[in-house]
């Protein structure tokens, strides 16, 4: 470790009497920030940003600062437990790790023997940097079914970028983009995977122009040079309309288009279907604003598109991504300084190799649930969750007998929560590894205590595409908690795949680093490593696609039977496609706007974070609220054809009066009954997960655009929704 350059670490140590400080790498979200962990008498007392870290430059977010409160939380599960009562009875007994892993191993082997490895479904949520280890386990087991959020979160970015240009282009904030187009994203309070709010802020402060596309007036939207307030779910149309202006007005990069793209003529014909008038009609965005945004972005170089998950959680998921990739491409911003970089990792074994995807026998891969339906997803090892619930509930196309969720709370975070609940209640055996006994874990047979990032050694950001890797250093041990990687390494030996794993997981980290010629112990002596940052690599090598070109026209999508060019499709639950339904459910409901302090369903039991948002809130325009008789702060009932939930109204002029915006993943750890109020305010109760409500290529469930009505809550509503009598 080098000395700390400008945090006054020695003085902090002296004043507070800390015993030591450890440089590590936070994973309060997907990871990313370099941190200093201050320790006194063996306990973590404080987490601060590492000023030397090139990713966050010493700054932090609320989640990272609260890490000690999560690690030492009184409700934390600190030893394995086995359920002794019926599901959701809250009755557990303490067992040893050996008992827990032996019981899980026994079930895995028995189900594999009787029903095939595909009957065992592994799962993770947004991921705690354990994704590759989980895939490794499933692939060597022979199960093609790993249930993740990948159908509608980050997986689409990987799948669409790989088929278009070989890898995920990352905004190169360090080299000062001159124009930033933020599309359906609030990078300053969320974590869109490879990005952090700090470098984005710095680029803006350095003078970058800002265009924001968002149905909500976020703070970035308020600060933008141009804000495009689109109708939810019309992103592909807006992007194609912008592309059409750029093509029509000859603002594209001629050299890039002439030499490096595939399918220009077909692409030109497609975008010509989106003249300004039609685009404005579809998207609600005025023509002049669309044209102005197109001109500003195309003429202000270098430019980046800051994208995220919102555009992926729609029925046009893949086409949204592909249209924005086209925007990055034809403006000449791919792989240029301050543009959209195809960064390279340091020479290590990558997540694909560590995930052992080649170990899955082709005959097992062919059994992937929904693999021949959602073929873009299937080719990237990703499945749609409903296929799993259906296989549990109907045993078609084959029975799923076991679920093993590692850092996942699907009851709170997957569409059609009541169907998820039915499946989790019915499944024959379920294991969960997590920090707390969540509403999902309450339905498990065995729950394993997972380690937080303070309690593990790891190669941080190993899975990302920004080119950095950073050491995560184990600082403390809490109870019997174990990292997911160590747990899987142990379990692997118990199910007969030990030869593909290691005596100790640190040897696995050595194996990842081996191509660099160093061990994990060597890596710990460094602050970080970065891969080669050569620009415009495609000029010599082309892109890593079938045509070696940037595929505006995707040969892979064509091969898999899809439209090779992006095309707007109206979602199945919109006022345009279902005017009949919109009579009773007149508002467009959008969901999932991020809240500082929470990471999806996590952290609601942490007082300093819960205090930031004590109650679930739904944003409503004051005109709409007045029409419905709702005052600011009222508890209201939000209803879709699928059900009803309660949240508190927050009046906001920042949305169109026809749109309301509800928060996601709310449960109430303070409710001590085993349900923890999972269905009271859970927006996924309202959301349809039917296959028709999913992207046909990626299987992304549309959770960002549905129809609802909203009204003040009555006493009877409260009793019905909370079970508490008024």
């Amino acid at each position, binding site marked *: 470790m080098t000395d700390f350059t400008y945090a006054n670490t020695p003085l902090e140590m002296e*004043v507070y009497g800390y015993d030591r400080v450890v440089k590590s790498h936070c994973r309060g979200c997907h990871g990313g920030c370099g941190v200093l962990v201050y320790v006194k008498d063996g306990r973590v007392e404080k987490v601060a940003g590492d000023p030397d870290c090139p990713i966050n430059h010493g700054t932090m977010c609320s989640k990272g600062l609260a890490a000690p409160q999560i690690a030492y939380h009184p409700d934390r599960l600190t030893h394995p437990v086995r359920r002794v009562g019926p599901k959701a009875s809250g009755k557990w007994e303490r067992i040893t790790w050996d008992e827990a892993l032996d019981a899980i191993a026994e079930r895995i082997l028995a189900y594999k023997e009787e029903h095939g490895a595909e009957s065992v479904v592994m799962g993770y949520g947004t991921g705690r940097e354990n994704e590759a280890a989980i895939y490794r386990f499933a692939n060597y087991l022979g199960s093609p079914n790993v249930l993740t959020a990948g159908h509608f979160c980050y997986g689409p970015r990987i799948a669409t970028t790989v088929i278009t240009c070989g890898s995920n282009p990352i905004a190169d904030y360090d080299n000062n983009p001159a124009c930033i187009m933020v599309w359906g994203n609030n990078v300053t309070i969320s974590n869109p995977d490879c990005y952090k709010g700090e470098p984005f802020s710095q680029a803006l402060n350095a003078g970058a122009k800002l265009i924001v596309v968002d149905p909500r007036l*976020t703070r970035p939207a308020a600060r933008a040079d141009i804000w495009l307030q689109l109708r939810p779910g019309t992103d592909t149309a807006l992007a194609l309309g912008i592309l059409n202006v750029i093509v029509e007005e000859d603002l594209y990069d001629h050299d890039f288009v002439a030499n490096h793209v595939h399918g220009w003529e077909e692409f030109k014909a497609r975008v010509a279907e989106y003249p300004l008038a039609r685009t404005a009609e579809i998207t609600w965005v005025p023509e002049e604003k669309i044209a102005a945004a197109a001109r500003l972005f195309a003429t202000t170089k270098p430019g980046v598109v800051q994208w995220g998950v919102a555009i992926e959680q729609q029925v046009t998921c893949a086409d949204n991504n592909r249209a924005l990739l086209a925007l990055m491409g034809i403006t000449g911003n791919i792989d240029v300084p301050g543009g959209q970089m195809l960064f390279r990792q340091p020479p290590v074994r990558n997540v694909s190799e560590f995930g052992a995807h080649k170990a899955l026998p082709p005959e097992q891969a062919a059994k992937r649930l929904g693999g021949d339906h959602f073929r873009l997803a299937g080719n990237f090892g990703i499945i749609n969750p409903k296929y799993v619930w259906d296989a549990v509930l109907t045993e078609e196309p084959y029975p799923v007998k076991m679920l093993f969720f590692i850092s996942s709370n699907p009851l709170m975070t997957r569409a059609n929560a009541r169907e998820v609940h039915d499946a989790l209640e019915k499944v024959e055996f379920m294991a969960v590894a997590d920090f707390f006994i969540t509403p999902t874990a309450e339905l498990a047979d065995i729950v394993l205590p997972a380690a937080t990032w303070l309690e593990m050694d790891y190669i941080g950001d190993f899975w990302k595409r920004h080119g950095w890797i950073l050491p995560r250093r184990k600082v403390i041990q809490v109870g019997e908690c174990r990292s997911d990687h160590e747990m899987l390494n142990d379990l692997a030996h118990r199910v007969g795949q030990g030869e593909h794993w290691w005596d100790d997981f640190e040897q696995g980290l050595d194996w990842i680093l081996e191509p660099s010629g160093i061990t994990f112990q060597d890596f710990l002596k460094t602050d970080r490593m970065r891969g080669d940052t050569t620009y415009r690599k495609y000029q010599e090598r082309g892109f890593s696609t079938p045509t070696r070109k940037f595929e505006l026209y995707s040969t892979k999508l064509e091969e898999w039977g899809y439209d090779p060019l992006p095309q707007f499709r109206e979602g199945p639950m919109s006022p345009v496609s279902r005017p009949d339904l919109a009579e009773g459910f007149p508002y467009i409901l959008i969901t999932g706007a991020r809240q500082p302090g929470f990471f999806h369903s996590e952290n609601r039991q942490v007082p300093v974070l819960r205090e930031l948002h004590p109650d679930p809130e739904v944003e409503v325009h004051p005109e709409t609220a007045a029409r419905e008789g709702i005052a600011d702060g009222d508890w209201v009932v939000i209803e879709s054809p699928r059900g009803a939930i309660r949240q508190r109204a927050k009046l906001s002029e920042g949305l169109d009066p026809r749109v309301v915006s509800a928060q996601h993943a709310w449960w109430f750890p303070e409710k001590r009954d085993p349900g923890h109020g999972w269905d009271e305010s859970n927006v996924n109760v309202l959301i349809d997960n039917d296959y028709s409500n999913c992207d046909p290529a990626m299987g992304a469930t549309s959770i960002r655009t549905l129809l609802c009505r909203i009204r003040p809550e009555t006493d009877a509503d409260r009793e019905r929704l909370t079970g508490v009598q008024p």
Partner: protein
Amino acid sequence: MTRYDLGIDEDLCWGCKTCEVACKGENGAPYGIKLIAVGEDRPALPDGSTSFVFRLSRCRHCDVPDCLEACNFDAIEQRRDGIVVLDQAMCGGCEACVTACPYRAITFDRKKRVAMKCNLCHHRIDQGLLPACADNVCPAHCIRLVGASASS
């Protein structure tokens, strides 16, 4: 003599509330009590539309503090470096300061019956450290200690 205050550029604030949590970690205010609080403001624009900014509520360490005047227990003093310090041990719980503060920056702990406010982490400043919220935690770099002699 250096006079200290927090310099906050609200135009840069993204509303991430990291400062709130950093303050909690240092000063341990109970649940519901914030010594620095990020709030939303939606000012009307000349064209009839509405903007959106974050405002930070915190003690301004006024040159002539109304709270000090109002206090019935001599619990509030102004240091020579400008920091207005509320000593909870001396607070009698009359809430006169809460009413007197023109910025509504003083909160009241109903359990302990004492007033609480930002004392500008004077215990850190006196040791040569920056206040918790201004110690390079903010991803927007919008909070700094004004008047600090040692740059950090």
